[in-house]
């Protein structure tokens, strides 16, 4: 037998089919699905046949059942411990308090207060609703199926549910009967109102858009939705009356709610329509009256004509007003600020350099701040050259003002400006008058400081250039194109540059750089990186020419520096490559000939350039350290066989000393070399106290190379700087010139010796280092053949050596820290959070937590099963008792009836006897 609620009936005869217990409602009343679903163990599990198996089967899903049972969330659940707390005054006799002996700070207690009576009652109630039902239906095979759409689906809202049901119904109708019906009798509705009606209303105001009405929801609605699910319990209290006897289901309540809210909405709408109608009516009336009231022209129409057309002045003012204003940070900085900034920058860079020089970061971890200058440039920002020039001057207590005025005048068009500076020309057509003036001033100033011409080569050149006629340069400039393709090979660059004057070459290189600035196109970076390599190669070629074109190199160095600042990585690679080449060549000659020869001027110039591009004071530097080894090789492996060799060797010494000028590091090879030079500058007579070190030999063809051959030449000698041209001198010098060069070499050598003395004076073994030098110098002095100046130099060098204090402090090792004894103090661990297992990894903690949870759940499930069984046993007992009582009653009844019958019979019998 089936009961039809809605939809079709499905008969399920026999026991073969296992019906979903949710759909079973034996009494024919609808039980709340939530309670059913929660209480029953396994929805969809095979239906138990007996009591014994029931418990066993339930075991499987007990965890879930308990889990949901332990945390009651459904609104219908009776208040447990939590509910008790929520309620203001529970029965004090029901409250059981677990008294704690000690208060432990930070411990969370969960079971200090409980309501055992209440929770037991709840459990029993739940079992009655679920387990008992199941028990009672254990032999029943008929089912009652509720096929209403979404009846037990709590995820669908009631409204939606209705909609879907309606849709389904419509669909069914449609399918069955109205296949050929062309939608004639169907009326589309919206919220129960015919759409046709709605369309008729031209001005409909949505209820939701009404500001006054919106925010306030009815109290009922709010309670229903947000009241914490207390609805079923509140309802009876709110509605005392005849209906209160029968508790209404949630569904009904919700339907009621919906109906109510809909009604309210409709009422509001009607109200608003009324109000609108009234307003319109009012408007109409007003207009009629208005025409009578006033005659003046309506303002609204006249206003647009009223507005005056802005004239040119106004427009200009607006434009100026709206023009993008300079940001505060972009304002022109004052000179002091600039100076301070520069100082700051310098200080930072210097600190960085010192750190690298001392190599303090060697043993620290790799979290060093990136090098600043490299950082500055990687973002493709335009290299601010003026900035740098400024700082350089500051370095040598130079005129900051000049540079700053230049800086100040460098307004927007920096590039133009720079170009002009580089060329030392003014271009009237494309730069402002003030700019050129400032340039002029600069140039004037630089001209004024004529006493240091070589220190500011660019400025003086600029000044000279301005002094000369403009037309020639204009013509020269006109010949050069303004854009150049980036050279793809060294030959390209060479073909671009050869045959041009120094200034033109510079211009070409600059223009190549400008045309291919990395910010202009994608591939430009690589092109400029290549340009560095080509320029370097070009420099090498210039240096190997005869005579070497040193003035061009002198200017190109600045370009190389700029490019290197832009691309430090590739530039360092290029320089390293060049150095490797040079060393390979030298190694090759050593293997082939057994000894090396001084390389060409190009290698020396490469080494010099490397020292200018990279910081030479670093303890370790990817370019500088190999360069140092290279320099050392030049001094130790290359014998001095000729005068150019001596010049080259002295140049190498100068470069070497410049490399270590900041770090003051010790170079044994250099001292050896200077010793050798001193030796070959004196007539050979073996003296005590010094030993020559290869590549110099005490005897041989070249052992008196620098001895002046003619006394007369010594008298006419004037001290001069050595020319680098002599290093590659293939043109023969006259004997007098050669003698003068020899004396100059000796002078340079003595100056370097002096420099070394000053530099190494602080070294503890200074006197041992300079002992051979001292012996040789004394010998030189004794010879007395040198010009006065040289003798003075000798004497002062000797005096400097003697002046260094002789203090020998015995060496002492740094006291190493004593190895600490092993201590057995307990290890103290900070407890950061109570109740959590300490001292294990996250995974381990998680595992422990899961194990704990599982055990708890397992115990809970066992307990639940036990209780279920107890409950069932109780039920069975009560059933049996009931049955027994019934039987007793029946027996009693029978006995009584029999006794009655007997009594009657006996009475009749007695009557008979009496008769």
């Amino acid at each position: 037998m089936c009961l039809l609620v809605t939809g079709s009936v499905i008969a399920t005869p026999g026991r073969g089919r296992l019906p979903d217990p949710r759909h079973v409602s034996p009494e024919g009343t609808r039980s709340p699905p939530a309670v059913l679903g929660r209480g029953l163990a396994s929805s969809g599990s095979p239906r138990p046949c007996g009591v014994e198996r029931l418990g066993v089967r339930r075991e499987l899903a007990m965890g879930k059942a308990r889990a949901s049972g332990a945390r009651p969330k459904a609104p219908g659940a009776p208040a447990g411990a939590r509910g008790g707390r929520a309620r203001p005054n529970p029965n004090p006799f029901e409250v059981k308090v677990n008294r704690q002996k000690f208060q432990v700070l930070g411990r969370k207690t969960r079971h200090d207060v409980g309501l055992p009576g209440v929770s037991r009652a709840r459990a029993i109630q739940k079992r009655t609703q679920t387990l008992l039902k199941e028990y009672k239906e254990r032999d029943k095979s008929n089912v009652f199926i509720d096929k209403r759409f979404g009846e037990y689906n709590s995820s669908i809202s009631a409204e939606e549910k209705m909609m879907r049901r309606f849709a389904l119904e419509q669909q069914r109708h449609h399918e069955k009967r109205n296949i050929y019906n062309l939608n004639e009798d169907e009326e589309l509705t919206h919220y129960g109102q015919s759409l046709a009606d709605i369309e008729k209303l031209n001005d409909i105001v949505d209820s939701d858009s009404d500001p006054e009405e919106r925010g306030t929801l009815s109290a009922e609605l709010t309670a229903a939705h947000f009241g914490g699910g207390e609805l079923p319990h509140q309802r009876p209290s709110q509605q005392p009356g005849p209906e209160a006897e029968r508790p209404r289901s949630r569904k009904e309540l919700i339907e009621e709610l919906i109906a109510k809210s809909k009604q309210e909405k409709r009422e509001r709408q009607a109200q608003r329509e009324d109000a609108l109608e009234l307003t319109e009516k009012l408007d109409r009336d007003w207009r009629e009256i208005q025409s009578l009231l006033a005659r003046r022209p309506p303002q609204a129409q006249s206003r647009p004509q009223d507005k005056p057309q802005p004239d040119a002045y106004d427009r200009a003012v607006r434009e100026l007003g709206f023009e993008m204003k300079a940001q505060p940070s972009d304002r022109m900085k004052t000179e002091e600020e600039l100076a301070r900034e520069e100082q700051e920058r310098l200080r930072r860079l210097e600190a960085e350099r010192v750190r690298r020089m001392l190599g303090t970061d060697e043993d620290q971890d790799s979290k060093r701040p990136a090098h600043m200058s490299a950082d500055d440039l990687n973002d493709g920002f335009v290299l601010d050259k003026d900035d740098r020039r400024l700082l350089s001057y500051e370095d040598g207590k130079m005129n900051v003002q000049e540079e700053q005025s230049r800086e100040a005048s460098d307004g927007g068009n920096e590039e133009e400006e720079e170009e002009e500076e580089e060329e030392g020309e003014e271009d009237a057509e494309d730069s402002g008058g003030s700019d050129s003036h400032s340039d002029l001033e600069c140039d004037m100033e630089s001209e004024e400081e004529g006493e240091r011409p070589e220190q500011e080569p660019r400025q003086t050149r600029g000044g000279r250039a301005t002094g000369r006629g403009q037309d020639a340069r204009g013509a020269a400039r006109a010949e050069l194109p303004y854009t150049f393709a980036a050279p793809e090979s060294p030959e390209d660059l060479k073909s671009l540059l050869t045959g041009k004057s120094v200034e033109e070459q510079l211009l070409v290189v600059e223009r190549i750089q400008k045309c291919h600035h990395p910010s202009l196109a994608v591939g430009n970076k690589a092109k400029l990186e290549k340009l560095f390599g080509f320029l370097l190669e070009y420099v090498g070629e210039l240096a190997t020419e005869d005579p070497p074109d040193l003035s061009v190199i002198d200017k190109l160095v600045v370009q190389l520096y700029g490019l290197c600042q832009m691309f430090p990585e590739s530039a360092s690679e290029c320089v390293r490559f060049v150095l490797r080449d040079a060393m390979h060549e030298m190694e090759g000659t050593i293997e082939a000939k057994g000894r090396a020869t001084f390389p060409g001027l190009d290698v020396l110039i490469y080494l010099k350039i490397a020292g200018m591009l990279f910081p030479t004071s670093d303890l370790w530097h990817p370019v500088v350290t190999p360069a140092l080894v290279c320099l050392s090789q030049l001094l130790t492996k290359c014998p001095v066989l000729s005068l150019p060799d001596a010049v080259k060797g002295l140049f190498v010494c100068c470069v070497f000393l410049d490399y270590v000028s900041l770090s003051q590091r010790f170079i044994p090879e250099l001292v050896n070399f200077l010793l050798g030079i001193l030796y070959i500058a004196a007539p050979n007579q073996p003296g005590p106290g010094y030993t020559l070190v290869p590549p110099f030999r005490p005897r041989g063809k070249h052992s008196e190379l620098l001895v002046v051959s003619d006394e007369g030449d010594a008298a006419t000698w004037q001290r001069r700087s050595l020319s680098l041209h002599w290093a590659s001198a293939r043109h023969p010098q006259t004997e007098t010139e050669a003698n003068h060069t020899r004396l100059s070499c000796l002078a340079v050598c003595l100056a370097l010796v002096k420099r070394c003395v000053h530099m190494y004076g602080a070294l503890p073994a200074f006197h041992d280092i300079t002992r051979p030098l001292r012996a040789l110098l004394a010998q030189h002095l004794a010879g007395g053949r040198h010009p006065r100046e040289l003798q003075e130099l000798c004497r002062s060098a000797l005096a400097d050596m003697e002046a260094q204090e002789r203090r020998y402090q015995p060496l002492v090792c740094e006291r190493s820290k004593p190895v600490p004894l092993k201590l057995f103090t307990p290890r103290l661990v900070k407890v950061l959070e109570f109740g959590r297992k300490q001292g294990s990894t996250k995974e381990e903690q998680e595992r422990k937590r899961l194990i704990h949870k599982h055990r708890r759940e397992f115990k809970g499930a066992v307990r639940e099963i036990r209780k279920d069984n107890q409950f069932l046993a109780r039920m069975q007992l009560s059933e049996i008792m009931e049955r027994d009582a019934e039987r007793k009653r029946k027996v009693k009844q029978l006995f009584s009836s029999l006794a009655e019958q007997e009594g009657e019979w006996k009475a009749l019998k007695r009557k008979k006897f009496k008769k």
Partner: protein
Amino acid sequence: MERVRGPRNARRALGRLLEAVLANRAEANAVFDILAVLQSEDPEEIQDAVRACSRLFGALLERGELFVGQLPPEETVMAGSQGATRKYKVWMRHRYQSCCNRLAELLAHPSFQVKELALGTLMKFVQLEGAHPLEKPKWEGSYLFPRQLFKAVVDGLLSLEEDCSLLLSQFCEYLEHDDVRYHAMQAAADTTARVANAHPEVPLAFWNNVFTLLSAVSLPRQESDVANFYVKHAAELSDKWKVTHLKEHRKAFQLMWLGFLKHKLPLSLYKKVLVIMHESILPHLAQPSLMIDFLTRAYDVGGAISLLALNGLFILIHEHNLEYPDFYRKLYGLLDPSVFHVKYRARFFHLADLFLSSSHLPAYLVAAFAKRLARLALTAPPEALLMVLPFICNLLRRHPACRVLVHRPRGPELDADPYDPDEEDPAQSRALESSLWELQALQRHYHPEVSKAASVINQALSVPEASIAPLLELTAFEIFERDLKKKWPEAVPLEFVPAQGLLGRRGDLCAQHFTLS
């Protein structure tokens, strides 16, 4: 011979003559024609003739058609009344003799092909003559070797005028054979003695040739290896033959070297000899102690030669109980600045490490060595410094008594270094009173690795010694390559002071002392 017909015809003609001589004794006079070609100017013709001679006399030797025994003068035999066969044999032997003489002369021919061919032919004759001896055995089974012929070959090789190293290297292939080697040693010793006696000033080329030959001789290590004979003897090898005993070989070897070394050799040869002394010469001598004179003399020469002699001396001291007075004093004297620059630096320091490895050396001695090396390190290039600094530290580690050199707490401040660098006796040098300030100075060395190595003394020295073996052969080029390959994790630091010109700023030395014009 008509040259017009070209070399092919000449060769054919020679072939025909050869056939004729071999086929018929009556045609024997054709030998003169062949020998005449040997005197030719044209190398091609000479080569043809040499080949022809080789075939001719090879065949004759095998046939036994040459006179055996003491060769009588040609005239007496021809005039005498012996049989025609004997006359023929004697006559042919004389031709053979003149051919061999000519071939020995050809060893000095300017053309290398001719020389090579002549050498090959002569050695072939040696082989054949050994197998078919041209002298009568003194007793049955006596050992016979064509000593005369072979001596001529060695004489030819050890030319006085020119460098025969190429030809000698060819000859060295024959030295694989024990008998050839044995006789070569004897012949070389004879030749050296003869030439040195004959000439007051022996040319350098001769010494070089001799050395090339001598250094190519290497004796087998074991007795059993002496079985490889060039000359195939009909009889079994006999124990009575000297040539089968390694001892005899060693004697010959020793004689040869002693004979060579007793002469006044050029310095370059000294070096060469000393370089191979410990490996190739000393182990094979019958009495290595005989080398003492030579080695001590070389040790006293000074410089690189002393360094090299050290190795041989060490072997003698170590294995042959040589007592060398003042060995350490001399070793100390060897230490001068050039020691870091010579080619044999690695060998020297390897040996020095060995000599100083004994823990029984007195502390003053070790201290003197350490101080001396430290002093020298002030002039050393980086590759040597990287080796010598751990060397010094090892010395200090081995001899805890010397640690005062780097750790002297509460020592008085001094006005001068008590160490006397000019003192030759390490005992008098007062090194123990000094400290290694040189190492402290080297901590400021420009190369980071050197400064790191020198900074080791700042801490208490660790117990295990640093191995210097991998550092011995270090070259500056290797350091350079290593520096280049070193990875730099960050961006390359840049100079922040902008460049202004090639010579740098005003303060720079380059700008002070050099101009571009």
